[in-house]
């Protein structure tokens, strides 16, 4: 099994602040002040921002919607607070550190990369864009994720997940790589799921997943999808010491909903 996350000082893919990027020092800023600055910077034309000394400030990236759909690349140094990238529309956020609960809450589009772990309620009701978490995440990840038309949210978690992963999921792709080789011990995976697909590296027991879910091994078409996102994952986290081939060599389990209408027969018509 691949051993991941052995970080040597110096090789860590560092923040690419440098030329052209505006810098905010968040050390003494409240959440609202920080987001005020971010919005001002975006409106004044900045396209790359680096925020240093982040320590629990919430809603980073949330207040960055404009009708013109301006886009920014934001680098967060430190620990991002709750609801990072909530309602995010089109921006790219990289966190060099951990993130707390509610990453990508109802996210619309864009990309979130967390070089660390994420808390509970990751990617809740996400309807587009991509989230990459290098390490594990907390409970209730990918709840009620949904897709429509061309928009298909993607969530890739390098570590393991906790209970209620993909509950009420209605669309999108969730990939749990479990690189630390832990056994999937989460329960209630995919309860009420009625769309989308979850790929777990390794296997799960029938008792761990909801009644509405079919468990099957990943097939060739699935491996193509996995290949795309695993290589994107590795591109974003060069510090992860493993190769695509090594990851894809292990068996993947696919979880799909039994029906688009899990509760169709519940009512007396």
């Amino acid at each position, binding site marked *: 099994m691949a051993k991941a996350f052995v970080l040597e000082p110096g090789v860590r893919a560092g923040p690419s602040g440098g030329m052209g990027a505006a810098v905010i020092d968040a050390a003494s800023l409240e959440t609202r002040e920080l987001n005020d600055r971010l919005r001002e910077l975006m409106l004044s034309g900045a396209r790359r921002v680096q925020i240093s000394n982040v320590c629990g400030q919430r809603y980073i990236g949330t207040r960055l919607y404009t009708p013109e759909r301006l886009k920014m690349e934001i680098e967060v140094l430190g620990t991002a607070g709750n609801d990072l990238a909530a309602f995010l529309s089109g921006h790219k956020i990289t966190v060099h550190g951990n993130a707390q609960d509610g990453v990508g809450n109802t996210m619309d589009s864009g990309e979130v990369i967390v070089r660390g772990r994420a808390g509970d309620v990751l990617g809740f009701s996400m309807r587009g864009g991509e989230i990459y978490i290098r390490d594990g995440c907390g409970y209730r990840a990918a709840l*009620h994720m949904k897709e429509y038309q061309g928009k298909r949210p993607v969530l890739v978690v390098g570590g393991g997940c906790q209970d209620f992963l993909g509950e009420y999921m*209605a669309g999108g792709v969730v990939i749990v790589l479990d690189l630390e080789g832990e056994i999937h011990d989460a329960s209630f995976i995919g309860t009420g799921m009625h769309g989308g697909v979850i790929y777990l590296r390794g296997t799960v027991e029938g008792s761990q997943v909801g009644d509405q879910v079919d468990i099957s091994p990943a097939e060739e078409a699935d491996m193509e999808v996995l290949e795309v996102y695993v290589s994107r994952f590795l591109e974003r986290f060069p510090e992860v010491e493993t190769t695509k081939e090594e990851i894809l060599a292990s068996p993947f389990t696919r979880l799909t909903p039994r029906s*688009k209408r899990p*509760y169709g027969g519940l*009512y*007396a018509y």
Partner: protein
Amino acid sequence: MRSFVFPEFSIIRDEERCGSCRGCERQCAFGVHTYDPVTDRLTSDEQKCAGCQRCAIFCPEKAIVVRPSPSFYRPNASWSREKIEDLKRQAETGGVLLTGCGSDKPFRIYWDHIVLNASQVTNPSIDPLREPMELRTFLGRKPDMLDIRAEDGDVEIRTEISPNLTVETPILFSAMSYGAISYNAFRSLATAACRSGTYFNTGEGGLPREMRDEFGRCAIVQVASGRFGIDAEYLNCAQAVEIKVGQGAKPGIGGHLPGEKVSLAVAETRMIPQGTDAISPAPHHDIYSIEDLSTLITALKEVTNYEKPISVKIAAVHNFAAIASGIVRAGADIIAIDGLRGGTGAAPKAIRDNVGIPTELAISSLDRRLREEGIRNQCSIIAAGGIRCSSDVVKAIALGADAVYIGSAALIAMGCTLCQKCYTGKCNWGICTQDPRLSGRLNVEIASTRLSNLISAWSHEIREMLGGMGINALESLRGNRDHLRGVGLYEWELDVLGIKGAGE
């Protein structure tokens, strides 16, 4: 399985009047009436009848009468016909009984036990035809104190004022989602709201993109547990954002929009795949505490750049006043409180008829609680659930509400007859359906005229009642229980309502 349930209605067709025009057959989506080309007569299958009266109203010869079926089970005070039939239906299907509209159970309607005051001689009444009467209402957080500086005749307000909604009349359209109701019905509500200077609520189904520019200025958008149709543009195009936690008709449970109602356009608006069940879970899965709610409220304020008031809609349940206090402290600018008789497109009957408390009591206890805690100014209260006429509005405001939501009343204005079959998606009046043939029946222009007529009629009546009480601004009536007296109420009810008995 053979059904042991009686037809609910009997249809009497006056054969002499009937001209076999087949109008009834074409009007009925439930397939009750059938034309027989051999005899050139129409026959009816009463088992399918929902009692919506569409055929009776549109019969040119007035040849059709639909009335409750006279057949009966042996009368039994404990086992009413409804209980027997519900039981039979469940025995036949094994399913949860669904129903639509608000509860029809004979809970006491407190509106009908409250009387209003009027001025005589010493405090003369005001003539609303001659004097200006102010119904304009501002919904949202009001500052604890105003720091005003007057210099050289210029007045400067130093206090930061929170965003408020301005309504010309204290009547707003309640949340009804596109998907639950038809596009035409949804658009009629939006058109009427814009025309009457009030707001419509998108419900949890999103706001179609082409409506955002035109109707955003009179929209309150909803964020519910399913998070359907929500993106930053949706939240920013409206004037306020409402977090739906509970609904009066079904407190504590979520909603399922059945897959067959998720048409292409509905799917696009809700941002989900066509034909899948749109499931709103019972709780918001990111809200398990007041702190979590506060997080979401702030997230919504963030995404809307602190420019819009955030409302939280909860159902009136036993201990809701304490919860509401927490909600205000969590940062909500408006609390919408939906009572026992609140309507719905589909709810389990057991929940609709048994869970929650009446709106009237809820308004009063919420208002009192917030006053006692000294935070009444920090939020506005919108009362919903069973508001039937302008005097209900006046009483609600005198009990402490800032404004009211009307749902069923608006639907009735558009043609709804409360047949309670909304969940079938076959609404003959074109309101609660996604069938293009049926929804086409509701003409946006005509329906929105009916709605704005209703609003203007109620507003006139409210002005009359205010004038009668000697009040010339709605502000002065808010929470002014001195203008209310109870008739036929028990002591505890008067206490909860905070009003005196008539004559006291």
